[in-house]
């Protein structure tokens, strides 16, 4: 099936706009909120809660470590939990209007990248300011982003259509996401994890993704196993999610 790009463009614009509709600052909020969050973290971790991570030499290293993983994670969590409910939420609309249903999950996943994009921009400026921008491995960044997109879109498509048959997913998805968050090295560095269980982290697609981001921005060590795992997860979640969606899409007409 050909992806309906024009519908997607309009729907994406509508999704982003509607979130800030009626507010005075409007789309500015998309910029203000990530900057404010980052500023808050900075105050907290650079002045008050001055922890250092062994991996990073720079002052307030934990602040940078946290942001490198948290920025993509927030986008992933938001995208996936919204995607799970998006077809269910548009049930009435879809009953009345012939609509390419794949646009809905793809849109919410894509829209969640806006905050990540703005945040990443600010983050890069801070890295430069702290003088550690050179530590990163720039070519890993597009790789990580592509993997993130493929995994979240695939998973988002599958979750969205599955939730029509199994409403329990609406409650289960946020719970599983919370679990995956703590099972990823975002709040803590891998060096604090016993080496014996390091290989278990290869089983969490978002842990390997976060580690790739750590390498891309901060130049942390990236074992080959992590990169291979990322490749496999990208194929499994991206391709598999799409296949699940394609198989189950015809059943939507039944429930609608």
């Amino acid at each position, binding site marked *: 099936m050909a992806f309906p790009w024009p519908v997607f463009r309009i729907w994406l614009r509508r999704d982003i706009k509607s979130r800030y509709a009626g507010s005075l600052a409007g789309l500015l909020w998309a910029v203000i909120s990530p900057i404010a969050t980052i500023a808050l973290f900075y105050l907290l971790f650079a002045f008050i809660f001055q922890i250092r991570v062994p991996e990073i030499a720079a002052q307030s290293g934990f602040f940078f470590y946290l942001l490198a993983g948290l920025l993509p994670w927030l986008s992933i969590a938001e995208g996936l939990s919204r995607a799970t409910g998006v077809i269910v939420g548009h049930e009435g609309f879809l009953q009345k209007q012939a*609509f390419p249903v794949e646009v809905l999950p793809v849109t919410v996943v894509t829209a969640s990248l806006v905050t990540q994009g703005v945040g990443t921009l600010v983050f890069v400026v801070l890295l430069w300011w702290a003088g550690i921008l050179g530590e990163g491995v720039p070519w890993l960044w597009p790789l990580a982003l592509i993997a993130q997109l493929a995994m979240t879109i695939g998973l988002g498509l599958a979750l969205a259509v599955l939730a029509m048959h199994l409403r329990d997913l609406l409650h289960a998805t946020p719970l599983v996401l919370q679990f995956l968050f703590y099972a990823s090295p975002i709040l803590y560095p891998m060096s604090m994890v016993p080496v014996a269980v390091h290989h278990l982290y290869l089983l969490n697609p978002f842990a390997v993704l976060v580690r790739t981001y750590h390498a891309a921005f901060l130049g942390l060590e990236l074992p080959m196993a992590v990169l291979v795992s990322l490749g496999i997860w990208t194929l499994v979640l991206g391709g598999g999610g799409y296949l699940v969606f394609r198989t189950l899409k015809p059943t939507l007409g039944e429930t609608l």
Partner: protein
Amino acid sequence: MTASDPGPPVQLAGAGKAYRVYRRPLDRVKEVFWRRPCHDPLWALRDVDLELTCGETFGLVGENGAGKSTLLKLVAGTLRPTVGRVRVAGRVAALLELGAGFHPDESGRENVLLMGALNKVPTRALDDYYRSVVDFSELPEAVLERPVKTYSSGMFMRLAFAAATAVEPDVLVIDEALSVGDMHFQKKSLDRIMYFRESGRTVLFCSHNLYQVRSLCGRAAWIHQGRVVALGATEEVVTAYEAHERARTERARVAAPASGAAWRPVAAASAPVRLVAVTIETPDGVNPTVIETFQPVRFVIEVDSHEPRPFHLGLAIRRNDQENVFGTATHFLHADASLQGVGRQVAALRIPAFPLLSGDYALNLYVLDDTGLQVLDMAEGILPFRVLHAGREFGLVHLPHEWELPS
């Protein structure tokens, strides 16, 4: 017929639609993974075989809940068939639930552009599409920038109708949508549908207005309890349906007797032509209490016309059980000579020898536009009158006859 004949524009083969009723939520999942039915099907439509030919206008009749709307939605693509096949060649415009795809918080412009994209209008043609929608809807530019939730229902419908029909469809699916907005816009939308029809598009049309079905459709289907029970020439199908309906109302009437007749023209104050009065003239005078069979009778209809646009008049005589005895309209006899002119207009229907036998009757009156499809004003069950027949023939109507006796 060209070499690249695309086949029938709309084709349903053994098509059916069942809504699934699950006893437990888990059955839903089981069914997905086990690929084994775990539900009780609720059939809204079954075994529909239907092929429309290119350029025909096809009517659907049937009671509420018979499955007409389900069939229309299958063709429009909002529903998928549970069994069988539905194939539609070309672009479909569906006037089913107008504006159902509109988002109340979005501007008219934004909504129209989405409709264009959904109807696969190419991106470079989107501007032209938008312009033609705006022109047709006659809404000012400033209004189109406002969220559609601020629109009056008339404005909303005008925009929705314009957006649905500006895509130059090959197949038009209409569900009772012939009355959109005010009189002026109703006329305009009707004209657009007629234009599609005349320019060879295929129209699938469902209405409770059997008069409209009769005058628009070449073929029709009657759907009863989810199945096509009659399919063929409109007159045959509609007559069969009417007979069924009559039997049904007959049963219902026992429970609820008909309300008293009253003069109640329904037109809005803005109607371009309004009924003013109707009188019956016989040699005994005006509005006699009794008409005798075979008397010459004139039904004189007075209307007020506020615009110089042409119009037609229709009159039906109905028995006191609401059964139509005879109905006619000016355009049946004089298709190209409509009434016209501003001010009081008087027309009369003359029946030289009134052929009805004893009984109680009343009149239905209609003012129609120049196409004879849009009802500008109407009054039903008015001016009740009684007919007495001095002879001994009985029944409803006196038929010309003679007895041939053995000599």
